């Protein structure tokens, strides 16, 4: 018994924080292999050790909030800008102040309040069956409410934050009433109840369970570069369509994976160095070639697979609106019966 107790004591003490170390502590929603690669490279370059806790954004937010002043976190990373806004709103972040940190990053992707910094972005696009849909039948997100899509649309659940962000952008652009009727109409066009993840929607098109799907762009890249031949075939059975591209239209909905300084960041200067590193040209190239996301720097070209889809016009909406409109978006989902 004594041995156990002393062991426990050891664990507790062994994990206490030391100040003034060459470390940076991250709470991250990103858990791809490429992220670890970036951190390893950063450590090699600077000697600063990167410590990471990976979990869902919401859980990390709750943890940050409840830890309060005692939080060891320096940085908060998400794959949905809505959560960055939420963190700002909950008072969990601090401004980055050093404006040189955003040099070279596309202006429209930046946070107007100066809290978070975009690291990559992705578009929520439409993919369609090469067999059963002609490209000229597609036009806008709004058009998905049309009767011609009855029983043909595939999409995942409304608890997914990418869908919540898309609907928030519609609320911001079209207003609440229009979005409500859009949501009601699109739900009646669903081919099946929302389920699975984005890749499952593409597979369901290939399987003939529906004709078009709303998915994040990089999933198509991942599918096409899969090691499973059947997955590549499924990826080839569909094509990519960027909605709302017509002259005068707003452009396709985009979302940002971003990073922000925690309010009580104990290793602030190290944290800023890591932000600079992740937005550097080298790191940006690593992102685009491993995860098929888009770089936030206009000079970094997308991966060839992504490039083949062509360039597209991005919705210039203030990205914070994807957070501010979130609650009304969720209520609209619920009222429309979007599971």
């Amino acid at each position: 018994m004594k041995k156990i107790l002393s062991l426990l004591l050891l664990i507790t003490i062994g994990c206490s924080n030391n100040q003034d170390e060459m470390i940076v502590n991250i709470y991250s929603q990103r858990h791809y292999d490429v992220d670890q690669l970036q951190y390893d490279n950063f450590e090699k370059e600077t000697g600063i050790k990167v410590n990471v806790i990976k979990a869902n954004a919401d859980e990390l937010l709750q943890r940050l909030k409840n830890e309060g002043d005692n939080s060891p976190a320096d940085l908060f990373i998400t794959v949905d800008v809505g959560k960055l806004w939420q963190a700002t709103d909950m008072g969990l972040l601090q401004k980055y102040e050093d404006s040189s940190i955003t040099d070279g990053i596309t202006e429209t992707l930046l946070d107007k309040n100066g809290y978070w910094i975009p690291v990559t972005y992705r578009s929520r696009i439409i993919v369609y069956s090469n067999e059963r849909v002609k490209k000229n039948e597609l036009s806008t997100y709004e058009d998905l409410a049309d009767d011609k899509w009855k029983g043909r649309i595939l999409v995942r659940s409304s608890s997914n934050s990418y869908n919540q962000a898309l609907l928030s952008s519609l609320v911001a652009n079209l207003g609440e009433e229009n979005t409500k009727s859009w949501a009601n109409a699109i739900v009646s066009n669903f081919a099946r109840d929302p389920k699975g993840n984005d890749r499952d929607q593409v597979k369901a098109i290939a399987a003939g369970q529906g004709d078009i799907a709303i998915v994040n762009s990089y999933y198509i890249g991942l599918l096409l570069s899969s090691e499973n031949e059947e997955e590549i075939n499924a990826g080839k059975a569909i094509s990519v369509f960027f909605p709302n591209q017509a002259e005068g239209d707003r452009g396709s909905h985009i979302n940002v994976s971003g990073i922000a300084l925690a309010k009580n960041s104990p290793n602030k200067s190290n944290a800023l160095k890591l932000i600079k590193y992740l937005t550097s040209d080298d790191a940006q190239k690593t992102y685009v070639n491993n995860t098929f996301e888009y770089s936030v720097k206009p000079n970094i070209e997308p991966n060839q697979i992504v490039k083949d889809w062509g360039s597209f016009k991005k919705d210039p909406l203030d990205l914070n609106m994807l957070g501010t409109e979130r609650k009304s978006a969720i209520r609209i989902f619920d009222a429309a019966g979007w599971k």
Partner: protein
Amino acid sequence: MNVKSLTLIISLVLICPLIYLVYSVLGLNLENFIYLWNNLLVGYSFNTLYLVFLTSIFSLILGIIPAWFISTSNFKGKNFFDVVLFLPLAIPSYIIAFTYSDILSYTGPLQSFLRNYYPDIYPYFNQDYLQIEILSILMALVLYPYIYTACRISFSLIGSNYINIARNLGMSKLKTFFKIIIPISRVSIFSGLFLVIMEVLNEYGAVKYFGVNTFTSGIFRSWYSMEDVDTASILAVCLLIIVSIFFILERYSNSKYNYNYKSNDDVSGNYTLNRSSKSLIYFICSIPFMLGFFIPVIYIIKNTVDTFSKIDLNELSILSLNSFFLAFVSSLIIVVIAILFQFFKKISRSKTIFFLSEIVSLTYALPGAVIALSLILIISAFSNFSGISIVFGSLSVLIYAYVMRYMAVGISPLKSSFEKHPESFDQTGRNLGMTNYKIFSKIHLPINKTSILIAFILCFVDIIKELPITLILRPFNFDTLAVKTYEYAIEEMIAKSSIYSLIIILFGTVLLIFLRKIINKSLNVS
């Protein structure tokens, strides 16, 4: 310190999330709850009930029938089946859900094979498999061992008298089974079913992937998406009340029905078998094992072999060590506390201690994430109040959360074992001038040895599978096998996740085989 106050302190430390929850509901804001009630709650409740109902039915079928045949018939390979029918318990429900979705998906091996070689029958298999009914079957496939084990013990203890009498009265086999055996065994069946229901109510990952919104999804929708802790707490308390009802029912039925088991009366070989009934038995006993263990494990092994060159063995050994260490230490603490509680209950015969030792089991009803988050809240409140800063990312907090969550798993086998032994043991000890400590170390520890081991193994197997608590409370750069499996699986990289799931299953399998052996030995089950 006397026994009562020590029990009280340990209990308080263990149930503080419950106290916090109930406390937070007192100052609630009903507006959002009414909204949730009007829009979603009816659907959520229906889904939950439907899922619990279906999973229970399938678990009962998969558990009771093989247990019956194995207990009452002699056939070749019986011992083999008796061991392997237990093994699906080693597979976490999220792993079986993701594995089967992959096997059955459009790009998975089954559909690809049929598409390429049997295009005529392929269309029948091109289905949407992400259905609530399929989910319930998958969950039943890994949860039925709870019922199987309970039934195995009960059927073997019934003895052949009941069966012989029924037969002499002209009852058919089927009638005997339904009219005599099932009613006699209902207490043990219900205790197994109780665990199945708890697991279903807690399940989150697989349920979300299948697009099934349950009560637990409702808790997270309010907490996360609506940023409404109040409503989440109300829902959690509702869940707690539902579970408490089941809990009380289980305890009530346990205390009410006391059948007279004749443990040395062998029931096996009671029915002679002809060839066709033999093949039927093989078929029936194979199904749960094949679907619940063999097929998914083979698929996972195949994926492991495919990705073997990419496996970082160094990382793998660290993860295995982390998982092992956490499960070992936490299980040990749970078992120690559980033993103390049972012993205190015995020597003090105090109602308070009895009540406390029951109530610490209730945290089992709360979803892991709720426990983790309320623990953060309580600890930060404590730090602010006392000025002592506690680092969240320490393993001790993680272990604390595990102990809280899995107390019930450790208590349940110990409780029944301690209750079985008569008071006269203690009295005799006392008459011989033994101190409480001596009674404990010389009498209770040795006679409850088996159940202590059982409690430890059950906790270990559960904790090594644990996911939400680990995700939320773990220290920096600290991964476990379960966490790694999950990270790859939700990104649909099933192949990459396979080595980690395989090790979890391996740990569980070895321990469960061992457990099977000691249970059978101690009960003299044949």
